[in-house]
């Protein structure tokens, strides 16, 4: 289980997280929703220990990330995979090298086993035979799927997705959603998905948390989300212009 306790994070004078409390249940899919810039990705980076909280803590199976040594943190990270919003593929490497880097660094697998594993991961994300491609030769959606294959290479217990379906066509979004569900059902992977895609939220989630002004505004199941009478949450999930959330547009409207 991952516990986020009273998490605060400021960037200069801007308060991004202002006391986030959330429990991520093992073996479940938890989605984190919220408006752009509300701190969803920042929260994700705290969960993998890329950012240190100003106050509060992230505990993975009871161990506090911010008190770990680098070595201990790396042990936890080996059990996690992060799918970056823009892929974050190493552009000096081929697709194959991107995916097998973790395996080469942390396992004693033979070249043949590594190669088989890379091929099966690429098959799983629907991109067979692109091992020798460079990231610059891939579309945005392909990069995202290669990033997912890379995140899964070490057979992680936790997979964190930063907007996995943004920029993908509806069919590919559905394939990614299906993959997240299958990974969760078959391998009991704990998934944390940051997304704006409400169709995806209803398809994949066991739990949904909505961040608003740096705190968790809603935390519950998809059914509870659909039935909530919180005006802020309703406006967000229904995508209404009118409501308590007042976006400030450039022309002052």
């Amino acid at each position, binding site marked *: 289980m991952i516990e986020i306790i009273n998490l605060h994070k400021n960037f200069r004078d801007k308060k991004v997280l202002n006391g986030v409390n959330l429990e991520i249940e093992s073996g479940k899919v938890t989605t984190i929703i919220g408006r752009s810039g509300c701190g969803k990705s920042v929260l994700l980076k705290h969960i993998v220990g890329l950012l240190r909280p100003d106050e509060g803590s992230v505990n993975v199976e009871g161990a506090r990330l911010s008190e770990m040594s680098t070595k201990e943190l790396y042990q936890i*990270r080996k059990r996690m995979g992060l799918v*970056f919003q823009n892929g974050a593929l190493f552009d000096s490497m081929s697709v194959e090298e991107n995916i097998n880097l*973790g395996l080469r*660094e942390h396992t004693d697998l033979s070249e043949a086993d590594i190669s088989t594993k890379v091929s099966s991961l690429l098959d799983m994300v629907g991109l067979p035979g692109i091992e020798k491609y460079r990231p610059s030769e891939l579309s945005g959606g392909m990069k995202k799927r290669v990033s997912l294959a890379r995140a899964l290479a070490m057979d992680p217990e936790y997979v964190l997705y930063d907007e996995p379906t943004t920029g993908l066509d509806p069919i590919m979004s559905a394939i990614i959603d299906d993959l997240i569900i299958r990974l969760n059902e078959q391998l009991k992977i704990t998934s944390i998905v940051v997304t704006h895609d409400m169709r995806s939220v209803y398809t994949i989630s066991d739990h949904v948390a909505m961040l608003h002004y740096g705190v968790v505004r809603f935390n519950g199941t998809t059914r509870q989300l659909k039935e909530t009478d919180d005006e802020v949450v309703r406006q967000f999930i229904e995508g209404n212009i009118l409501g308590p959330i007042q976006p400030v547009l450039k022309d002052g409207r």
Partner: protein
Amino acid sequence: MSSLKKLVVAVAGFFLIDKIGSRVLFFFSGMGESMILLYNSLKNLKYVHRDRALVLEQMVIVGVNSIPLVIVTATFAGMVSAVQAGYQLQGFASPQMFLGSATSRAITIELGPVLTGLVLSGRFAASIAAEIGTMKVTEQIDALETMAIDPVRYLATPRLLAGLVMMPVLIVFADFIAISGSMFIGYLSMDVDPQAFLSSVQRFMELRDVMSGLAKAVLFGASTALIGCYVGFATEGGAEGVGLATIRAFVLSAAAILVNDYIVATVFLT
């Protein structure tokens, strides 16, 4: 002076002190952070056998790929030094006796290391800063961290090691090319016999001339790689940030070469 004028002077003085203070703090924090990066990079030298492919790749980039540039720079530096020395010796001494020693000492002590260092620092530090900077702004460094791979071990240590090893090799190579260029010009325009040129080199060249050149080469290699890595890791923003980091790495590494040159010259030659 009216009270308004005094107030304006006081406010201007305050802002000036504030500006200078923040610059000084920025400089010392940068120095401190780069020393921490150096320490962490050296700490990872124990993994060098495992990371030999990464180190060799960087050695090829720094060393082998720089050979054409070094040949052009060193050839012309050597030829110019022969022309200059010939001009200086006019009416004083015979070029037959002294051209070899004058040019070879100038080349091994100063021209070879500094010119090669400056040319390579532009190429090496800027390319490291651009590469690591791009990785930083596109979250590739975060991706390494997430995969439990230490970016300093994976990126900085191989580059530092490549700089430390290849800069001396390239500078010795540049010295050889430059002295040959100088000998060639001596023979062509001053009728200095190559045999006489080489005996002059042997007669007057001292071991400490070569040692000071090599000491400079090691320092230049380390400082160039370190500055490239430090500036790369500190890059912020998008493409503009990477552009600024590239310029910064080039300027800082060139300045570091001149400072290190002075320090080594003081240690070895005074």
